[in-house]
């Protein structure tokens, strides 16, 4: 455990640093890079509409996207989700939580040379698929995984 790093961050005010990474799926999110496209996509109330508004309705499944999320959430209020894109020329990574009231949880624009590797902590209203959508070379790619949100207790 890197105690020094932790202590330094505590002094600096970890809250602010971490809050920047947190994108909530239940509250109406504010896009970090608000452009013309963002408002309707973030306000979409179901997966199909969100995908359409992202111009990702035709997204194809890709094994070159590594989506990491727990099979069962330890805490549905802060589920760590990360996405790494191995698709060349990735320009944007979007993350969606299917069963949330507003599925689109966050979008990250990649400037040229940026490593397409993002991590967020998301609130899940219930057991749901989480989907990563990657845009590269003008095409959309996706992969998804189910995250179970459970009441807990009763284990072994």
């Amino acid at each position, binding site marked *: 455990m890197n105690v020094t790093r932790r202590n330094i961050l505590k002094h600096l005010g970890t809250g602010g640093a971490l809050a920047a990474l947190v994108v909530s799926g239940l509250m109406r999110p504010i896009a970090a890079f608000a452009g013309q496209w963002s408002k309707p996509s973030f306000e979409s109330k179901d997966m199909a509409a969100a995908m359409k508004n992202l111009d990702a309705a035709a997204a194809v499944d890709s094994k070159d996207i590594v989506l990491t999320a727990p099979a069962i959430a330890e805490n549905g209020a802060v589920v760590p989700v990360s996405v790494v894109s191995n698709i060349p020329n990735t320009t944007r990574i979007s993350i969606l939580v299917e069963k949330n009231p507003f599925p689109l949880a966050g979008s990250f624009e990649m400037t040229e040379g940026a490593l397409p590797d993002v991590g967020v902590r998301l609130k899940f209203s219930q057991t749901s698929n989480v989907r990563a959508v990657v845009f590269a070379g003008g095409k959309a790619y996706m992969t998804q995984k189910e995250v179970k949100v459970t009441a*807990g*207790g009763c284990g072994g």
Partner: protein
Amino acid sequence: MAMHRREFLQVLAAAAAAGFALDSPDLLAAQGGGGAGKFYDLPRFGNVSLLHFTDCHAQLSPIYFREPSVNLGLGAALGKAPHLVGEHLLKAFRIKPGTAEAHAFTYLDFAQAAKTYGKIGGFAHLATLVKQLRASRPGSLLLDGGDTWQGSATALWSRGQDMVDASKLLGVDIMTGHWEFTLGHQRVEEIVAKDFAGKIEFLAQNVKTSDFGDPVFKPYTLREMNGVPVAIIGQAFPYTPIANPRWMVPEWTFGIQEEEMQKVVDEARAKGAQVVVVLSHNGMDVDLKMATRVTGIDAILGGHTHDGVPAPSIVKNSGGQTLVINSGSNGKFLSVLDFDVSVGKGTGKIQGYRYKLLPVFANLLQADPAMAAHIEKVRAPYQDKLAEKLAVSEGLLYRRGNFNGSWDQLILDAMLEVKGADIAFSPGFRWGTTILPGQTITMEHLMDQTAITYPWSTLTEMSAETIKTILEDVGDNLFNPDPYYQQGGDMVRVGGMTYTCDPNARMGSRINDMRLNGKPLEAGKTYKVAGWAPVAEGAKGEPIWDVVARYLRDKKTIAPRKLNMPKLVGMAGNPGMQV
């Protein structure tokens, strides 16, 4: 009179059938096969030997433990180990019915056979067996899969200290954990840093800090055994903060983390490990799936689901094969895994292996004096409390099984009456010892079923919808077709209310026809529901052992329990169930 072996065995069988206790080691050993005194005679094989026990649940003294009669396997797990019970298990592993081994591995004729073969486990007897095996296997390692510091009154009252000291005395080299974490993260850190320093390594590759993902424990260790570098990787119970109170480990995150597991295996191999073994608390179904996806593991020595499986499950994967082994629970078994690894320049190949899961029969093994003295010492301050006689049980009381066992039925019956509830829930724990018909239930026995750090009993108004949601939620933790979504407990035990359960259905559709006194539960109506072991922070209530003790003292005699089993749909012919 000279007696041939065959005649001798016939006499034994007749004696067993007539209910005589066979407590002479020679007699028992003869029946176990191989002649008198040979039951534990396991010749050395190869040059890398691992001894493994798991989920002893702090049972320092010999006990009875009945294996399940219901342990359903669904989908790909149907009809495969560990989802085989009773005669199905005997047949699959070619174990002769009516033998000591048949008694150890199954529930068959349990009360009668338990009288014949006596109690199992106990650290003093286990210590003798460990010493004997280590004498024939120089350099061998003793691995503990966890759930060692919880499950008994003395472990709870000494905050695990009795078990920590017993583990050191037993010569445990490496351990991982699950219920250990319910002593709170500070206590775990204290034991690992102080008591275990230089003696026992606590390993877990899948426990990280929740802020930066830094490792909390050492992920693996590299040990040289007779010239062979051997890596042991720790895998703690992945769902600790979900199945148990998260507030006890607030800054740690768990999970299966198979990508990380692959990295650790690759790193150990790169550093020269010729044998890679995972000491796992995943539960056997999760181990079996992990073995198909992570390559380079020679064996997984697992626990959590309390499956005592007589032979390894061999899982093929793109890197070769992995032996998946689970070593039972409650101190009942000791696994012996021997590898023969070629030694010399440019070699290091596993040429063969032998495996045996040895039942620990207390009557067949002398108690180790040093361990016996330790056990006596830790029990002494609590002796009066432990020995308090609460009631006499007329029937067999056991817990293990996918649905209500008779011990849980007794706890539910007590909760319904003492709390004045309509419905009662008791968690689907897999630990808890067994009481034979006619045996006196002591406070120690009651604590064997209830000794946890969050023992509070509760009474809550719940709607029919909430009750259904809870049952569906727990049902999915047990019956989800994907093992990675299973948490390794049994179904929540239900009192007062009947229901049907269709394990093959999807979550939300498994639980149907919920009835109270024959009448369907009404939508919108609320019911008084008693429960215990709440995982929420700040929960309060009378400890469950006080509730049940009051009931037992009042009743004095406990008649055989009538099990409130759900009506099962689609399970006819499942070899994980015998009726």
